[in-house]
């Protein structure tokens, strides 16, 4: 582009300092949010638990009517074990959208790596995941589900969700800071996506002719993997996970440069 303005910073500084500062700010933002939530509401962190439980109850009713299979696992466990990671994913993305808008004051004041805001959004949802994970563990004990080595896959799966959520979150934050429509639409989109993911029903219930398109959904591999690892004690299907990883890659290739460019001008519209 001709005639672009440039701002050059020309002095000795330590790159590692910058990384340290990024994480310091990240922790500070997450702490702020969590403390604020605890103090402001009566139920506080309990809200993190209620959301997947609520869906579980609804799905259990629907299941009775529609006769959905749960592959021999008690339905409550079947669906809750998928809802916990899903809630993490869905909340992370929903929080990313307005994350920059909510921090308008800081963005307009200092030159900060703006990626910290969607990253904090995902991190806060991660904290909620840990909270609702406690109930999940309780449920597993209740149903006498054995813990196997497959559990070691959990951090990997959680990390995959985090990256996928951050990629999409960056996209929504980048566009949404300028035009809020996409931020408002996010909850609706997440509802659709929930129905397109094997949470309420197992993957095996999906008609064969739809399977190819269906498994292009990057969350399929991860959710089935989560359930498999926790309840069935089996390692996740690597083919499906490969699809997830490719999906994450594609999204980041688009979202990362887009966010980098568009985030520079955030202060102009906040």
């Amino acid at each position: 582009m001709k005639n672009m303005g440039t701002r050059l910073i020309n002095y000795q500084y330590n790159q590692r300092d910058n990384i340290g500062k990024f994480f310091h700010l990240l922790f500070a933002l997450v702490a702020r949010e969590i403390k604020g939530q605890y103090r402001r509401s009566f139920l506080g962190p309990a809200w993190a638990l209620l959301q997947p439980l609520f869906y579980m109850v609804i799905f259990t009713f629907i299941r009775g009517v529609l006769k959905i299979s749960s592959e021999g696992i008690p339905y409550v466990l079947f669906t809750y074990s998928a809802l916990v990671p899903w809630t993490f994913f869905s909340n992370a993305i929903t929080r990313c959208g307005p994350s920059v808008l909510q921090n308008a004051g800081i963005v307009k004041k200092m030159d900060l790596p703006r990626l910290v805001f969607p990253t904090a959004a995902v991190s806060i949802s991660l904290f909620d995941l840990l909270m609702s994970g406690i109930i999940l563990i309780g449920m597993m004990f209740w149903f006498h589900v054995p813990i196997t080595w497959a559990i070691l896959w959990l951090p990997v799966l959680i990390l995959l969700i985090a990256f996928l959520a951050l990629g999409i979150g960056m996209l929504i934050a980048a566009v949404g800071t300028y035009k809020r429509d996409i931020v408002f639409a996010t909850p609706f989109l997440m509802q659709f996506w929930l129905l397109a993911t094997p949470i309420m029903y197992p993957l095996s219930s999906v008609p064969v002719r739809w399977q190819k398109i269906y498994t292009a959904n990057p969350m399929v591999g991860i959710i089935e993997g989560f359930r498999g690892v926790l309840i069935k004690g089996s390692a996740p299907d690597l083919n499906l996970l490969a699809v997830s990883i490719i999906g994450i890659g594609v999204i980041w290739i688009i979202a990362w440069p887009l966010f980098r460019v568009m985030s520079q001008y955030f202060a102009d519209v906040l």
Partner: protein
Amino acid sequence: MSDDVIIQVEGLWKRYGLPLLPAVRDLVSRLSKNRRSIANNGGPWALRDVSFEVKRGETLGIIGRNGAGKSTLLKILAGVTPPTRGQIEVRGRVFPMIELNAGIHPELTGRENVRLLGAIMGLSRQEVEEKMPEIEEFTELEEWFDQPVRKYSSGMLARLGFAVAMNVDADILLVDEVLAVGDITFQRKCLDRMEQLQNSEITILFVSHSIRQVERVCGRALLLEKGQPLALGEAADVASRYYADSSCKIIEQRTSDGESHEIVQMQLEDALVDILSVRLLNKDGQVSSEFYTGSSLTIEVDYEAHQPVSDVFAGFGIATIDSFYISGFTSELESNGLDLKGKGTFRCTIKDLPLLSGIYMVHLKLKNVWGSCVGGGFGVKTFSVIVPKDIRRSNDYGLVRLNVEWS
């Protein structure tokens, strides 16, 4: 670029908004109902062709009216928004002292918010913990420091933000009217801190509406008007230029209603004398609104007395444009009372105007022997004063110049 220059700005232009490619811009503007969306071919230029250099350790003032582009310039230097055109080179750490309380959460305590602000302002966790006792002491918040911040007054919040900001190490400080909040003691602390910083090698860019503060604190100043640089040079020179431009506008504003409204008549039950017009004359007897320190200023008043009034004394008051009363004087001691009948004119001359640069207004009051007011008006005339170059002394600060003799 020479070694002692720490900021160099060349040909800076800034327009707010996302610079979409022309095709996308067209598409978006067609889709969106709002014609003035971000897709519009830009908008007004916030800054036009600004160029200047700042040397290490210097304090540069940036002045201008509202909308002149001062905050925009600071934001670009801070790296908050990119320049549209031009080159900026910054050779040091920049710390923008703008909106010091941004990011504060009302449910967190003062201490917790200090940690948060520390993270935002770029301090490391260690630095914040080390300096916490100092910060706590500076805020003077005592037991409030561990109370949720939603209980704080705005003055307390200001102290919190400033206390953290004071501890940030930076080579360049961008100060944007931050000193305008808080009570007297707090402002004193801020000014003290500023002066302390000036004595070090730290470079300061100071944006303020208070021209007096800028003249006092800064060596050079940059005057912006509608995004364009109007003047750059010694603070006193630039301030005079600002006054000259502003006074024209203020005087225009005050007379734009027309002669009849120009004089704000006092509300009196029995205004026996109407003030018809007031003129200010310079040393050559010409009507003017611009005067020089040390020259003479004559106030000429046309009046109309509805009934004959005897033994009337006239009193004038001179105040700054922000209503700071400088001096009032009456004719009581000098001459006998005036006998007013019908229409007439009287004059008063200030022989050796001691006022320094600024914009001032004249108040007028007519009183009879018993002290009751028979007529007058507030702010009947506005004028500006400029210190002429030949008598300018570098240590003249304040409102008036005093005639002194050293021995």
